[in-house]
């Protein structure tokens, strides 16, 4: 058997070497081409060609606009003519369209002969006008971007931080300036003079948000009322044919709280009637069951409709208007018929012209693409065009070259890399490097990405750390860490129940979660100690069952703070609890600072590092060493007098307690605590992260935790952005997450199994 393998291995290895050499050569060629492209971007000649392209593009845009105008005018005239005919009504829609379209096409063809190759008498004047417009636009654009960015910052901090818009709006009443002033408590910038001009927009925003909040609460109440109604009535057909008044009275008797909510009367009666008619035909109306999916970090998208411009911006806008007038007059000199266009057509041409002249940035590729899209390329001759194309796609070529280089390196050093790094980790690391480079290509802001990765690292870090003692003590991947997570969530809702906020609340949530986790973890470890060999299967299903059991628990536990229970029924915890009013982002913001645009959540990272340090110290202690011995070789450990069961109990309890603290940290970073089915998949996420970091089901180190959580979250964050900009519509990143996360666990399983089970 081994001889056959050896024979096989040699030619395979050689083929791989040859392939990798070919790839190296290819990537070399691409890299050289990219360097040439970058060099070309800087030369005088390309600059000249670029501005020639621009002039050409401007001319084309203008003449195209004229052609469009002529065609659309011909079309509307034809339509008018058709309308005047007596038999107009008998004509089909298709026929009318076809006739009009052909008329428009004819007019365009005739006009093309006239205008499509505009002759330039005085190109210098045109070029000056174009440069003038570019300068004005670039000034205006830069200023506008800066202002919008500042506004966006305020908007995001308001939307993310304001706990209760309704309260704010109600407190301020009609007084706009009071409302504006009270908002500055959540966004410090607002109190500064520089942003006073934003007042009308921000006030409108606050009022709209309050309205939306009220509507949302109403909707929630309505859903609950409907479901309470469905549950309370056992036989709907009894109500068949009952008048509205009587039906409402009858239902109010059966359903608590229905009578007080007269304002939903119409919609509730509607729902009741649906159920009555369904009951009569022997069916039931499907109840919508909201399933809270896995937690995702939502990025607040700024809504600019509340944006107000400053004086400076308005001036810049006027300046760009004047510059455009200058360009337009130059253009009308070249194409006199432009002056005959009406205002609507002129404005539509203006937008395209402005986009052509200033593409939003000074980036070579962006400018080239903008000009080329408007047929600016016709200004260039054969070899120059080729050179320009090379220069414009230098970045693409570079990225492709690097991808090939990485692939070639992977093939060349396959055995060495996978030997020390493991197959999946090698592939994922290379994938991560590639994503980083591709991020540059897709113009994704790297500092923002990095901030995101850091936050998510801290968010998931402790949860991943919880996997470590489990692996070390020999129970393998502790999928049942959800038990600890639920204990932590219990801690959070306890702190909310007693209205605890700030550091005290956070500390209380962590501590009470850990205290609850202790006995749970102990009982769980006793169970696992009797199931040696199939812990992973058992722990997965015990975890699932516990989540399901606690779903009932969340409904039944006697919490009574109105902020956390369902409004209507008066019992049962809500699914999502906002921590914004208590301790959301408390740890993230502690000592946090900006460096090169990267927001560093110092507190969060420090906490993770502290946790890792403690874990590292523990694993060096006498107990820790004994535990590691149990995990890596239980028989040897038993022979040397270590109590295997005791070590496993310690490890499992530790893992459960860390998970409890981890979910509190996770929730404060996320800003929300999610109950019910939300924690179900956390065990899988944490397992895949630590496995990606290089742990096996028998051995884990602190470095695996840190590296794994960085790599996993890095790939997810980058992958999400890139997938979203590469493929329209989301979903691809979710697919990637599912496949990476489960693929790595499958791989780990194949590494342990394979032996006979007898």
């Amino acid at each position, binding site marked *: 058997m081994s001889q056959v393998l050896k024979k096989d291995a040699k030619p395979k290895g050689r083929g791989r070497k040859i392939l990798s050499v070919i790839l190296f050569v290819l990537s070399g060629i691409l890299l050289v081409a990219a360097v040439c492209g970058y060099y070309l971007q800087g030369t005088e000649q390309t600059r000249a060609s670029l501005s020639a392209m621009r002039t050409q593009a401007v001319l084309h845009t203008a003449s195209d606009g004229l052609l469009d105008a002529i065609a659309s005018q011909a079309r509307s005239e034809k339509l008018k003519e058709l309308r005047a005919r007596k038999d107009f009504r008998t004509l089909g829609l298709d026929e009318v369209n076809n006739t009009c379209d052909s008329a428009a096409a004819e007019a365009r063809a005739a006009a093309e002969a006239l205008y499509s190759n505009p002759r330039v008498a005085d190109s210098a004047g045109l070029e000056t006008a174009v440069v003038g417009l570019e300068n004005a636009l670039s000034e205006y654009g830069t200023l506008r971007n800066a202002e919008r960015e500042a506004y966006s910052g305020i908007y995001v901090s308001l939307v993310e931080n304001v706990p209760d818009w309704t309260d704010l709006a109600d407190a301020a009443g009609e007084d706009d300036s009071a409302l504006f002033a009270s908002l500055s408590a959540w966004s410090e910038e607002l109190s500064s003079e520089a942003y006073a001009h934003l007042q009308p927009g921000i006030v409108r925003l606050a009022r709209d948000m309050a309205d939306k909040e009220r509507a949302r609460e109403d909707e929630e109440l309505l859903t609950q009322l409907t479901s309470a109604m469905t549950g309370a009535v056992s036989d709907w057909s009894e109500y068949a044919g009952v008048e509205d008044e009587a039906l409402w009275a009858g239902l109010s008797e059966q359903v608590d709280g229905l009578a007080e909510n007269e304002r939903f009367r119409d919609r509730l009666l509607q729902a009741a009637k649906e159920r009555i008619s369904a009951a009569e035909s022997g069916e039931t109306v499907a109840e919508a069951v909201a399933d809270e999916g896995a937690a995702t970090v939502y990025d607040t998208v700024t809504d600019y409709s509340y944006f107000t411009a400053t004086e400076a911006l308005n001036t810049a806008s006027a300046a760009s208007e004047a510059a455009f007038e200058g360009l337009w007059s130059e253009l009308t000199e070249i194409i006199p018929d432009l002056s005959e266009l009406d205002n609507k057509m002129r404005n539509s041409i203006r937008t395209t012209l402005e986009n052509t002249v200033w593409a939003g940035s000074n980036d070579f590729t962006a400018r080239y693409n903008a000009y080329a899209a408007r047929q600016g390329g016709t200004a260039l001759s054969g070899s120059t065009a080729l050179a320009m194309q090379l220069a414009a796609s230098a970045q693409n070529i570079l990225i492709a070259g690097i991808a090939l280089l990485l692939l070639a390196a992977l093939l060349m050093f396959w055995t060495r890399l996978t030997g020390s790094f493991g197959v999946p980790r090698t592939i994922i690391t290379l994938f991560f490097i590639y994503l980083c480079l591709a991020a540059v290509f897709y113009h994704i802001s790297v500092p923002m990405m990095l901030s995101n990765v850091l936050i998510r690292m801290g968010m998931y870090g402790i949860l991943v750390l919880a996997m470590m003692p489990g692996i070390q003590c020999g129970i393998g991947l502790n999928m049942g860490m959800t038990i600890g997570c639920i204990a932590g969530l219990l801690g959070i809702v306890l702190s909310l129940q007693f209205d605890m906020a700030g550091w005290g609340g956070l500390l209380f949530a962590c501590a009470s979660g850990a205290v609850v986790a202790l006995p749970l973890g102990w009982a769980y470890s006793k169970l696992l100690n009797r199931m040696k060999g199939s812990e992973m299967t058992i722990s997965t299903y015990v975890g699932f069952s516990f989540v399901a059991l606690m779903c*009932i628990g969340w409904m039944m536990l006697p919490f009574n703070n109105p902020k956390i229970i369902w409004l209507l029924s008066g019992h049962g915890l809500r699914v999502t609890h906002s921590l914004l009013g208590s301790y959301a982002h408390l740890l993230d913001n502690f000592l946090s600072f900006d460096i090169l645009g990267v927001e560093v959540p110092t507190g969060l990272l420090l906490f993770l590092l502290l946790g890792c340090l403690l874990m590292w110290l523990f694993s060096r202690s006498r107990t820790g060493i004994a535990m590691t011995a149990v995990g890596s070789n239980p028989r040897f450990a038993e022979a040397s007098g270590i109590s295997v069961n005791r070590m496993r109990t310690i490890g499992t309890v530790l893992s459960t307690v860390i998970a409890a603290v981890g979910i509190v940290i996770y929730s404060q970073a996320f800003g929300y605590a999610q109950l019910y089915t939300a924690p179900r998949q956390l065990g899988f996420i944490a397992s895949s992260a630590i496995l990606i970091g290089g742990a096996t089901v028998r051995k884990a180190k602190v470095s695996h935790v840190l590296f794994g959580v960085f790599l996993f979250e890095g790939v997810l964050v980058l992958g999400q952005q890139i997938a979203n900009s590469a493929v329209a519509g989301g979903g691809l990143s979710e697919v990637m997450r599912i496949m990476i996360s489960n693929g790595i666990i499958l791989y780990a399983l194949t590494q342990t*199994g394979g032996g006979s089970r007898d």
Partner: protein
Amino acid sequence: MTNQNKVLNHIKTYAVTYLFIALSVFFIIVSGLDMNYVASQLLLRLNRNAFIVLALIIPIVAGMGINFAITIGAMAAQIGLLLTISWGVTGITGILLAAGITLPLATLFGFLIGKLLNRMKGQETIGSLILGYFANGAYQLLFLFIFGNFIPLSDKVTIVGATGVQNTLNLTGSVGLYKALDGVLQVSFSLVVYILAGAAVLLALLQFFRKNLTGKKFAAILILAAVLVGLLQIPAIADVFSGAGGRQLIRVPVVTWLLIGCLCVFNLLIMRTRLGQKFRAVGQSQTVANAAGINVDRTRVIAIMLSTVLAGWGQIVFMQSDGIGTFQTYAAHEQVGLYAGAAILVGGASIDRATNLQALIGTFLFHSLFITAQSAASNLFGDSAVGEYFRAFLSYGVIAIALVIYAWRGAKKRKSSVDLTQATKE
């Protein structure tokens, strides 16, 4: 073994089943639902789910535990259904086409699953579960980005102006797959009971005269048949199944039941073939089977392939059945493994033992709880959501308990064998 011990052992093995029987009866009473409704729903669900549950038996016998990767079979079936809808094939032909597409796909998938599970022996249950999750990713990729872009589909199933297949696919109306099997021939429930009772008596008579059956057993069958027929004569019970008093007449979809019956017979027959012997040998001990010259890995792969194909067909039976009509393109397969696994365990099967009867009883019991849980919970706690969560808890809990019992027994066996070897050493 004494008689008392026997009874005790029986109760021990079937503790979960008896618990569920008690729970079902309790729930049916508490829910206050009309028995006619319960019976009709139960029949519907049995009809829908039995096929998939029966598909779990072969891998259990072959010692591979609960094959949660039957979700992948269901995915194959959904690909088949999607193509059938897209090509506009209707009725029985459509179902046959979908089954025909499912066969090679599920065979291939089953082969791959089997190969992978052979690399994680002893962890098949969790392995197949995670494999199902992983395949779900591939399935999403296929339906979101590959279908419609690289594999052309008709406008009927794609979203115009976006990538991917529609979120819900309709089987009713002009698509013509709804009730394509169920609707072919339906007879009333009581007639089915009469025919079955008559057939059982005839068969028993034949066997009795051939002396294959003891008098005791013969009498038992006669009495059982008589009791069943007699029960249907009681007006209160007859009313449950008949359309009296504005209720629904309960009908049995004959073709689907025949298919389920065929699968039961198939499961029985295959165990008598050489292949079936191999399954059992491998299931009992891989070492012994290996020593007896059985290719263990190959046998296991075959078991999974069979299970995957059957599960795929089961999913088609499920989809076409009465009361479904549409399916969630991206989620319809997700719970298949969970519900089927829980059902068979409720029936008294364990991780290494399962029969047709256990599968059918389990499906019956599990779904009787499913039907009544919501109303029962809303009557008990004033909240129907509790019932929903209770159902989820039952599904996961019963699997967890079965796994724990199995692992417990395994640990005990190992311990006693260790004790034995130590004792002999001393």
